[in-house]
């Protein structure tokens, strides 16, 4: 059964853990998490006591001001960061879309990049071959697929990244602010695919500053503030098919 369970998760970024010969720099406050300590032992409390549970079919929207901890939370869910405290239990195959450029090589063609991305996500060669045409078709890149990645626009890169990440039906899909670059028609297409995915009893976690996007995609909304959960609400469900205007 696909599920996510976080119990009292906290995450601390230590700023001067490295041994260095230079004097530690002084950082000043601003938006974001809480900066604590001083000199060599500064740290940022990016997540603090975060607990929630998601089940199959849930679509969670993560909102909050800059530096609230959204990206950090997604990276904890993906397993890039080990939490400093608390526990994370995840059932299901996870795929993630953070920065659209991650894992793409500028010099390689789109096609080659799909292969590389697939290998990195642990797909077999047959799986990659089977999905190749689907991915190309969904991205609508046409002949551009055989040009080097550096010749792509931001939106084209986003199309390729999204098509590849969702091609193999991940059970859990984590997304961070990716959709902005795609044009309106692709955003609708992407939204339909996310609906399909959630209907196949998957889980989607999406961090975004776009209230409209969150409302049209998500069924739950988690508001973070300085690393703490401010509220966790269940949104009125908008059924697939009735595509909301973005």
């Amino acid at each position: 059964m696909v599920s996510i369970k976080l119990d009292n998760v906290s995450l601390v970024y230590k700023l001067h853990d490295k041994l260095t010969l230079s004097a530690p720099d002084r950082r000043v406050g601003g938006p974001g998490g809480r900066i604590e300590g001083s000199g060599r032992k500064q740290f940022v409390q990016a997540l603090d006591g975060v607990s929630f549970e998601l089940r199959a079919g849930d679509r969670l929207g993560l909102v909050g001001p800059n530096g609230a901890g959204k990206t950090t939370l997604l990276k904890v869910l993906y397993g890039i960061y080990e939490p400093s405290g608390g526990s994370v239990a995840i059932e299901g195959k996870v795929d993630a879309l953070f920065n659209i450029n991650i894992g793409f090589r500028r010099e390689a063609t789109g096609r080659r990049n799909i292969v590389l991305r697939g290998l990195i996500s642990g797909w077999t060669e047959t799986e990659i071959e089977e999905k190749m045409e689907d991915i190309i078709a969904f991205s609508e890149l046409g002949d551009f697929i055989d040009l080097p990645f550096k010749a792509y626009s931001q939106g084209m890169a986003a199309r390729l990244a999204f098509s590849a990440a969702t091609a193999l039906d991940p059970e859990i899909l984590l997304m961070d602010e990716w959709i902005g670059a795609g044009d309106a028609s692709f955003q609708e297409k992407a939204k339909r695919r996310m609906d399909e995915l959630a209907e196949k009893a998957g889980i989607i976690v999406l961090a975004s500053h776009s209230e409209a996007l969150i409302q049209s995609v998500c069924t739950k909304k988690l508001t973070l503030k300085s690393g703490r959960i401010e509220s966790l609400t269940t949104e009125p469900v908008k059924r697939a098919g009735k595509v909301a205007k973005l």
Partner: protein
Amino acid sequence: MIAALNGAFDDISKAMKLHRVWVALAHEDIGDQHRRTTLGPLWLLVNYVAFVGTFVFVFQPAGKGAAGYAAYVAIGLLVWFYLMEVMSMSVALFQREESFIEGTTLPLFVYVMRLALQSIIRAGYAIVGCVVILIFSGSPVGMPWLWSLAGLFLILFATPPLITVFAFLGAFFPDSQFIVGNLLRVGMFFTPVFWMNKGQDPVQKYAYEWNPFTYFLEIVRLPITNGEFPAHAFTVTIMASLVTWAIALLLLGRYRKQVVFLI
């Protein structure tokens, strides 16, 4: 300690299952480094031959020592350049892979193997040049060459842990990138790459006997230049490799989850 070792073996076995990833990435790296050049990776061969040629031209002793010198330098430079490249590329390994480390959950050993394979491919071009030089300089081809080959395999065996240790060093202690770079540049003069130890000069003698890299060079070189099995050099190299593996496993096991916070 046991937990650390388990963690390390877990990381390594996951990386081995993902071997297609590092094989593909290493090939991409080689391709990218030489994209849009006419000779492509053949430049590696040209560079190597030019270096050996220069050293032979400048340092070749007169008289009867002359015959073996080309072989001596050819093998010395082959192994030294390989080790030097591995070490100097490793100290910044995790920093270079930052976007992958912060964006994917690939085991760290994938990056280690990616660099190892890339260095091995690059050294492969030099090996071709080296063999040609050996044959032209009249080194007798025979059984001892197999010992040399065994020596090369031993160096391959030591490569992944060497990369791991230097990569962690660079991650925890960023200044080491510059320190290691400088030491390696000086190190060539304290390693019998192009000078021969006659046992007369005390500095030379110390540099020969107390430098672990001497033995990495000699396991490949002595079988060909002297036609003998260098038992002592093999013993030292095997011990050094095992110690490096032990340190690498502990570092990997204990600190692999910390790396993402350090880069």
